[in-house]
C-alpha cells in the first residue's frame, strides 16, 4: 500500500471500482488487525476502565452502590441503563476487550506462521554494499580469508551462521524475541480465559457469625452472596464450621493505642455432611481452605446479648444481636426487632429497639456519649424504643440492621420526652406504660467471614506468569544480523596481497547498543595474534 506511488494512484483513480465484498472484507480485516487499531482499542480499554473507579460497583461494594442509588434517584436509572454500576460486566466494556482479543488473534496467528517460516530459514545473504548498513567496520589484514572467516564464526557465539557464497558469512541471532512476543500475546488470552472461568463459575459470599454459633455452606446461610452467571448452587462444597473463639489484641499504650492486631478465630470444621471435626485457627492472610473453598477472616465486632420481656412477663426476645461497627473506636449501631410481644392484657404487640453500643463507654457534656476504646472494657448500649408495625409481614425483604419506622411510633416517658435506654452490662430497664423491660445480659464478639471460591485461578496465574516470561523475552532479547565479507586485494608494488575484511550489523529491534558490539566483534576477528606489543 505504502509502496504505491502518487502517479500510480492517480492512474487508478478514474476507473476505481467499488470494492467487491470479498476485497472489502479483506481490507477491513487488515485494518482491524493492524497495530493502529490495537492501539486505539487499548486506549478505549483504559478509558472505559475509569468509570468503575468513580461509580460504586455492585460487584465490589454492593452497599455503597445501593447508597449511591438512594442519594441520586434521578441519575441512578440512567446509570443503570448504561451499566455504570457493573462496568466490567457491561456490554460496552466486554465489546472493547473482545474486539481487542479478536484483533490480537488476527494479528498473532499470521505472525506465528511467519515466525515458523523464519525459524527454518537461513540468515539472509549479505547485502551488496555492507557500508550502507547502520554499523560498518572494515580493516585489512595479512591473514588468509579462510582463517579470518573461521575466526569470525568463532566470534559469533549464539548466532546461526551460514556462508551463502565463498568469502561471506551471514549470521543471525535473537530468534526467541519474536517467540517471547508471541508467547506474551497468547498468554494474555490464557489469562482472560482463566479470569472468565473464575468469574463465571466462582462465588463470593459474606456471613457474620457470633462466637459460639455455626455456619453450614448452603445458600440460605449467607448474608450476602454474589455468584458468576454459570454458578450452580449444587456445587457448593458441603462443609460446616462453628466459631469457637475469637481473639483480638488492642494496643493500649503509645501513639498507636486503640489499634487492633493479631486477630484470630478458632474454628471447628467438618468436611462434608458428617466429616470428622477438625480444628483450625484462621487469621488475616491465613484463611481456612476446604476443598477449594476458602474462608477468610475479614473483620469483627460485638454482639450484645439482649433480652426483651413483654408486658405479660414472657421472654419475647433473647439472644446476641449483631451491632455493626461505625468507626475505629467500635461505636456500633444495631437494631432489635421483637415481632411477637404481648401487652399485659395479652394483645399482640411489635416492639423495635435501635441504638448504639459503646464498647468502652465515655461521656462528656461536649461530645455526648462516645467509645473511649475499641475493646469491650466497659460496654454500654444506648437505645430508643418503638412500637407498632415492624413491617415484617408485607413480604418485602428487610435489612436486619435497619428499623423501618413508617409503621412505628416512638415510646415516650410521662414528660413527653423519648425513652432512652442506657444499659451498662447486666442492667435492666423498664419500658413505659408497662410494656415490659430490656436487659443487657452479656456481650460476644462476632466475626465477618468471607467465603469464596475462584475456580481456574491457577490458569490465570499460569497465564500471567507466562506472559511475563514472554514479555521479558520480547523486550530484552536482541535480534541481530551480522555479515562478514572478506576480499583478497592485490598487493601494490608487487608486494603480497592483503585481505580486506568488512563487518556490518543490523539491529532488528530498537534500543540496542550495536556499535560497541560491532567494535568488539571486529577486534575479535582481527585476532589476538595481531595485537601490537
Amino acid at each position, binding site marked *: 500500500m505504502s509502496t504505491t506511488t502518487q502517479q500510480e494512484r492517480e492512474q487508478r483513480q478514474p476507473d476505481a471500482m467499488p470494492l467487491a465484498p470479498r476485497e472489502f472484507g479483506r481490507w477491513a480485516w487488515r485494518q482491524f488487525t493492524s497495530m*493502529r487499531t490495537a492501539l486505539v482499542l*487499548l486506549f478505549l480499554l483504559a478509558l472505559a476502565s*475509569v468509570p468503575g473507579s468513580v461509580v460504586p460497583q455492585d460487584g465490589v461494594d454492593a452497599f455503597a452502590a445501593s447508597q449511591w442509588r438512594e442519594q441520586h434517584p434521578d441519575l441512578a436509572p440512567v446509570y443503570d441503563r448504561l451499566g455504570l454500576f457493573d462496568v466490567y460486566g457491561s456490554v460496552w466494556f466486554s465489546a472493547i476487550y473482545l474486539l481487542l482479543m479478536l484483533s490480537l488473534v488476527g494479528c498473532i496467528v499470521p505472525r506465528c506462521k511467519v515466525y515458523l517460516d523464519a525459524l527454518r530459514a537461513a540468515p539472509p545473504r549479505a547485502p551488496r554494499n555492507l557500508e550502507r548498513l547502520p554499523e560498518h567496520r572494515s580493516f585489512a589484514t595479512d591473514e588468509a580469508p579462510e582463517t579470518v572467516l573461521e575466526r569470525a564464526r568463532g566470534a559469533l557465539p549464539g548466532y546461526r551462521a551460514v556462508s551463502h557464497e565463498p568469502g561471506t558469512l551471514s549470521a543471525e541471532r535473537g530468534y526467541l524475541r519474536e517467540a517471547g512476543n508471541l508467547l506474551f500475546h497468547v498468554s494474555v488470552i490464557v489469562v482472560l480465559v482463566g479470569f472468565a472461568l473464575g468469574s463465571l463459575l466462582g462465588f463470593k459470599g459474606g456471613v457474620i457469625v457470633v462466637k459460639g454459633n455455626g455456619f453450614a455452606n448452603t445458600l440460605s446461610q449467607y448474608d450476602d452472596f454474589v455468584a458468576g452467571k454459570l454458578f450452580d448452587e449444587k456445587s457448593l462444597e458441603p462443609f460446616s464450621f462453628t466459631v469457637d473463639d475469637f481473639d483480638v489484641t488492642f494496643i493500649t499504650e503509645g501513639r498507636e493505642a*486503640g489499634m487492633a492486631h493479631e486477630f484470630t478465630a478458632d474454628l471447628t470444621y467438618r468436611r462434608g455432611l458428617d466429616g470428622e471435626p477438625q480444628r483450625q485457627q484462621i487469621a488475616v492472610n491465613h484463611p481456612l481452605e476446604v476443598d477449594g473453598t476458602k474462608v*477468610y477472616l475479614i473483620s469483627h465486632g460485638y454482639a450484645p446479648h439482649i433480652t426483651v420481656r413483654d408486658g405479660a412477663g414472657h421472654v419475647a426476645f433473647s439472644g446476641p444481636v449483631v451491632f455493626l461497627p461505625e468507626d475505629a473506636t467500635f461505636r456500633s449501631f444495631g437494631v432489635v426487632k421483637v415481632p411477637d410481644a404481648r401487652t399485659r392484657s395479652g394483645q399482640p404487640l411489635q416492639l423495635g429497639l435501635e441504638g448504639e453500643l459503646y464498647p468502652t463507654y465515655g461521656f462528656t457534656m461536649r461530645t455526648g456519649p462516645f467509645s473511649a476504646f475499641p475493646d469491650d472494657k466497659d460496654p454500654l448500649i444506648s437505645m430508643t424504643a418503638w412500637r407498632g408495625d415492624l413491617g415484617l409481614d408485607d413480604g418485602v425483604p428487610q435489612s436486619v*440492621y435497619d428499623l423501618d419506622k413508617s409503621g412505628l411510633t416512638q415510646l415516650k416517658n410521662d414528660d413527653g420526652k423519648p425513652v432512652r435506654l442506657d444499659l451498662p452490662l447486666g442492667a435492666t430497664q423498664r419500658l413505659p406504660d408497662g410494656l415490659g423491660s430490656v436487659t443487657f445480659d452479656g456481650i460476644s464478639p462476632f466475626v465477618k467471614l468471607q467465603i469464596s471460591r475462584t475456580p481456574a485461578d491457577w490458569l490465570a496465574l499460569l497465564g500471567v506468569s507466562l*506472559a511475563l516470561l514472554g514479555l521479558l523475552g520480547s523486550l530484552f532479547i536482541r535480534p541481530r544480523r551480522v555479515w562478514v565479507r572478506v576480499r583478497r586485494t592485490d598487493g601494490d608494488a608487487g608486494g603480497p596481497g592483503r585481505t580486506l575484511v568488512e563487518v556490518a550489523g543490523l539491529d532488528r529491534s530498537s534500543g540496542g547498543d550495536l556499535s560497541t558490539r560491532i567494535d568488539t566483534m571486529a577486534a575479535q576477528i582481527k585476532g589476538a595474534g595481531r595485537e601490537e606489543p
Partner: protein
Amino acid sequence: MSHDQFEVLSNQAVAVCAVFYFVAVMLHVAEWAFARSVAPARVAVGPDGEPLVDAAHQAADATGRTAQMARWGYVATVVAAGVHLVAVVARGLAADPVRVPWGNMYEFTLTATLVVVIGYLFLQRRLEASWLSPIVTGFVLVTLMVDVLLLYTPVVPLRDALQSPWLVIHVIAAIIATGAFTLGGMCSVLYLVKARWLERRDVAADRPAGYLARVPGLEQLDRLAYRTHAFAFPLWTFAALIAGPIWAQHAWGRYWGWDPKEIWAFITWVVYAAYLHARATAGWKGRQAAVIALVGLATLWFNFVGINFFFGSGSQHSYAAELVARTLGG
C-alpha cells in the same frame, strides 16, 4: 538505639539529605548556567575577524568551571543518596517490631524518590546521562518537600493485612517500577521539549544554543526513554498483575476485585502497553509515543496520590487514612 531514636534519626536524615539535594540542584543549575555562555561553538570574533582573546579565555575558563560544578553536583547527589538511604533504613528500624518501611504513602514516597536517584546515578555512570542531573535532583527535592509537609505520618506498626511476605515483594517491585517510570517520563518530557526546540530553531537558525544543547539528540533521548520504560514495564506487570493478585487472594479472598487501586494499576499497565506498541507503529513513533508515556506516568501518579485521597474509603488500598479495621457494613 531505641525505636524512637531511630524515628528521630530518620527524620533528621531526611532533612539532611534534602539540604544536600538542594546543594546538588544549585551546583547543577550553576553548571548549566556556565555552560550556556560557552554553548555556541563559535568564539566571539572581533570586527577585524580575529578572535577576541578575552572571549576565548573566558570560554575556556567557563568550561573548566562547568566541569567542576558537574563534579561537585555529582558528589553532593551521591552524599544525599547515602543519607537518604539512612533515612529509609532508620524508618524501618523505628517501627516496633522492625519492618520494611513501606507501610504508608510517606514511606512509599521516601523510598520511591531514593529509587529515582539510584536509577539516575546508574544511568549517569553507565550511559553518561549527566544531562538528567538538574531535573532529577530538582524533582527529588520538591517531592521530598511535599512528602514531609503533606504526607508525613508517625511510625506505626503494620496493620495485620499488611503483615505478609508479599508486602515486601509486591511493594518493592511497585516502588522500583514507579521510580523507573518516573525517570523514563523525564526522558520523554525532555524529548518533547527538545523536539519542539529543534522545530523552532529551524525558523531562527542563528539563535544561540540554549540549555537544551546539553541534552542529547532526539534519537538518543527516545532510546533511553524506551530502555527505562522497558525495564519498568515487566516490573510493573509483576507488581500489579502477579504479586498483587496473589497477595489479594491470600488476604481478601479474591485475586482481582476491581478495587479503585487495582483499576488504575490496570489502566497504567494498558497505557504503557500502548506506549510499547506505539514505538513499533509507523506514525506513532517519537512524539506520540512520548506523549503516551507521559499519560502513563500521569495515571501512575494519580493512582498513587489521587486514589488514596479521592477514593480513600472506597479502596482497600487506602493507607493514607489510618483505618484501624475496615468493617464492611450492610
